[in-house]
């Protein structure tokens, strides 16, 4: 028997012998929830994931994580309407994180530093034809090439880029940026064929021994409306105007330009006309500002530049230098109805921006297709009714934006890859959304958004310089660090610090944490104090 001092009968032991985990009726578990920005991104970017790296200043890793889903960050950082920011939880704290501006910063860094994509690791031996080198086609080409397939990217135009080049004005997307990002995709071994319109998809596939095709020809035909016009009336369509901006001969629209329509294209062309020297650039739209399909910030920028808007108006007739307009009023259902009140407006030309149609000529004779409302129906796997022919972008039913097109390209690429390998692609199940109520925002400091400096309005009106300029290194880092990391552990050590029972084990940088269930009493303080909602409490089975 061991010797003990007076009145002592037991050896000293540690409380570690007492496994308090048995008290628990709920256990904390680490989870990854889906950040609302990621969920909102039409291109399926892992936004929270790349911001996580950008926060440390490791911009290259951030860019590499970003480009796993989207090969065009520099373009996207300029032309995307950032639905991610509309869903950002930070908006409920102060203002949304400027995701779009950080994306642009990363894209521009990549161009500046010459970062390249890594070539595919293996070759599948399959050949895929992509028709249309717009955002959707470029995205599909990139993803298919990385998956090891031989890719031929064919376009009718003299340069790649599609609507990004021939539809979006330079002041929103400088061409050097577009060229650099296209070149980087070509560099991984995508064969680019320009001035090569595909007239018959089946013949082209047969001739080129292609195993599959992805069609993304876009919607390049401007819709026309019948306007009674005198002899010398000049009526053109917006798509042609924007396309001719890329050529040698700039369009001649005159001093007084009227643009007919209420979408983003109408704004693009009105702002372009102003920059071409028009003294008056007027948008005529049959409904109200609130009903305009254009994005409000673009309307705001246009108004700042001196673009005039005529709401509730339709064009009845065009004569030389003169336009007859009928005032409209909204009926109970919100539809514009004529009032019989007319007025005249001076105009040298009218530009119609009434939407675009798709040239579906290449699909003539292809069996099994369904064409509805001028676009091609596709299944959930982006395949048309014809086996092995997939389609995406503006030529399928969807919202017509660059981001949606890029998303289509990626999605189609994954399905094409699976189809070529005789499998089906099943996307990973989505995690639960990291909604605002899952966060403990106490732990985030309050910081206003970095407002992108806007170029002087006057300067903008006369040139095609970029309207919205980018962040520099210091404020990009600042902006990235505003991310709340919704639903994903950012290793803040809170759970490790606040556990009254030392039942959280810190695993070191990059390895997050682990619960020690031998001692965790299930109090739930860690879950409540986790800033980003990455801990869930789960009932124990009793």
């Amino acid at each position, binding site marked *: 028997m061991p010797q003990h001092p007076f009145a002592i009968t*037991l*050896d*000293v*032991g*540690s*409380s*570690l*012998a*007492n*496994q*308090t985990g048995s*008290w628990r009726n709920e256990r904390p578990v680490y989870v990854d929830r889906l950040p609302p920005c990621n969920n909102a991104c039409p291109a399926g970017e892992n936004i929270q994931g790349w911001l996580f790296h950008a*926060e*440390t200043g490791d911009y290259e890793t951030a860019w590499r994580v970003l480009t796993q889903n989207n090969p065009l960050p520099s373009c996207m950082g300029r032309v995307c309407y950032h639905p991610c920011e509309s869903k950002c939880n930070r908006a409920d704290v102060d203002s949304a994180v400027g995701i779009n501006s950080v994306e642009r910063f990363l894209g521009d860094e990549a161009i500046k530093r010459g970062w390249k994509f890594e070539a595919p690791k293996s070759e599948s031996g399959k050949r895929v034809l992509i028709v249309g080198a717009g955002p959707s086609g470029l995205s599909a080409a990139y993803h298919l090439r990385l998956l090891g397939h031989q890719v031929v990217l064919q376009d009718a135009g003299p340069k790649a880029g599609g609507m990004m080049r021939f539809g979006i004005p330079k002041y929103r997307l400088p061409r050097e940026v577009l060229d650099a990002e296209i070149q980087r995709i070509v560099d991984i071994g995508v064969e680019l064929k320009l001035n090569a319109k595909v007239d018959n998809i089946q013949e082209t596939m047969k001739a080129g021994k292609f195993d599959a095709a992805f069609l993304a020809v876009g919607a390049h035909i401007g819709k026309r409306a019948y306007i009674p016009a005198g002899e010398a009336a000049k009526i053109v369509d917006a798509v042609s105007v924007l396309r001719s901006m890329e050529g040698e001969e700039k369009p001649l629209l005159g001093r007084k330009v009227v643009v007919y329509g209420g979408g983003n294209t109408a704004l693009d062309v009105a702002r372009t006309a102003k920059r071409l020297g028009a003294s008056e650039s007027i948008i005529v739209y049959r409904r109200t500002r609130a009903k305009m399909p254009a994005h409000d910030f673009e309307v705001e920028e246009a108004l700042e530049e001196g673009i005039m808007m005529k709401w509730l108006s339709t064009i009845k007739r065009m004569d030389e230098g003169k336009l007859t307009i009928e005032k409209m009023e909204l009926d109970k259902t919100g539809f514009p109805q004529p009032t019989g009140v007319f007025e005249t407006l001076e105009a040298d030309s009218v530009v119609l921006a009434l939407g675009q149609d798709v040239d579906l000529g290449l699909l003539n004779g292809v069996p099994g297709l369904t064409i509805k409302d001028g676009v091609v129906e596709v299944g959930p796997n982006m395949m048309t009714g014809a086996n092995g022919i997939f389609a995406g972008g503006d030529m399928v039913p969807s919202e017509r934006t660059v981001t949606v097109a890029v998303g289509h390209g990626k999605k189609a690429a994954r399905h094409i890859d699976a189809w070529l390998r005789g499998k089906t692609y099943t996307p990973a199940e989505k995690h639960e959304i990291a909604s605002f109520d899952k966060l403990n925002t*106490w*732990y*985030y*400091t309050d*910081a206003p958004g970095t407002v992108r400096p806007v170029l002087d309005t006057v300067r903008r009106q006369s040139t095609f310089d970029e309207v919205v300029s980018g962040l520099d290194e*210091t404020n990009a*880092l*600042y902006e990235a*660090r*505003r*991310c*709340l*990391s919704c639903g994903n552990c*950012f*290793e*803040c*050590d*809170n759970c*490790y*610090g*606040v*556990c*009254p*029972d*030392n*039942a959280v084990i*810190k695993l*070191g*940088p990059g390895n997050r944490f682990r619960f*020690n269930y*031998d*001692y965790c*009493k*299930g*109090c*739930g*303080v860690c*879950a*409540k*104090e986790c*800033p980003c909602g990455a801990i869930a*409490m789960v009932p124990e089975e009793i």
Partner: protein
Amino acid sequence: MNDATKEMEPTQKLKFYQKGTFTVGNRLVSEADRTVQASIDRSNAITCGHRGCQGCGEALGARYVVDAAMRATNNNLIVVNATGCLEVFTTPYPETSWQVAWVHSLFGNAAAVGTGVAAAMRVKGRSEVRILAQGGDGGSTDIGFGCLSGMFERNDDVLYVCYDNEGYMNTGVQRSSATPPAARTATTDAVGDEPGNVFGTGKSVPKIAMAHGIPYVAIASVADLHDLERKVTKAMGFHGARYIHVQVPCPLGWGSASHDTIRLARLAVESGVFPIFEAEYGVITGSRKIRNRVPVVEYLKLQKRYAHLFKNGDAPRLERLQKLADRNIAEFNLLAHEGNV
């Protein structure tokens, strides 16, 4: 003389530091700038297996304080503990949760024992060894108050930390002189004309400590770890008597959910119920400003000890409690001014 208008010094000075300024650690800052609690090799002065209740604020507060004191003294620390929850749940014979030299004597004499240990170390020439005496509000503000005041007036070289859970929780939630007005305890039942603890009773030991003119007095909360650790480290920079009063929510005694421990401590601070300030040689040197002010009811309604205020809608008493918080806000200048955030 008192200057509570000053913001206490910031615990972190970082540019473009948006995320997790208030979190325990952060991967974006250097190890040296993180809290002791963020460290993978912190002392864990109270290790796992202790018998503290689920969500025990005192277990948390004591680990925060002792770990920080151990770092500040390079582990040359002797802890003297009064009787109370902290002593009972960490040392059921023959087990101990303490990973530090630790002494327990009686309920009321922790300050005196601390004085004695300090004297012994001085006699032995062990000037590097520092003494931390600690107890709950019962052992400090009531039973050990005479010894505590003696330690203060003699300016003995001891840091005394009171973990204030506002009552005698271990023995069944009886009232102490730190129990707030209207709180229900086993000895202040929610019956009669004035249910719960009587208004106008109790005392502020931090203010009494300041009246002794000792080198350092501070109030801290488990809701603000950065501030708490800074104060413990600062206290260890002084010699002589020092006092830190830490509010530690008690799920059992307050009738709150175990997961709300830190949330309650935060609401106490943000409502003005529990003002955070510090003082040197009897003079207040700064206070912690409220970030997002909340009405006192936000704090009260999460606790069953105040349930009687809400059952029949006791507006007059709720208003009195709000007024007490408002008085704290005015007295300690708890609202941030323009340009002082």
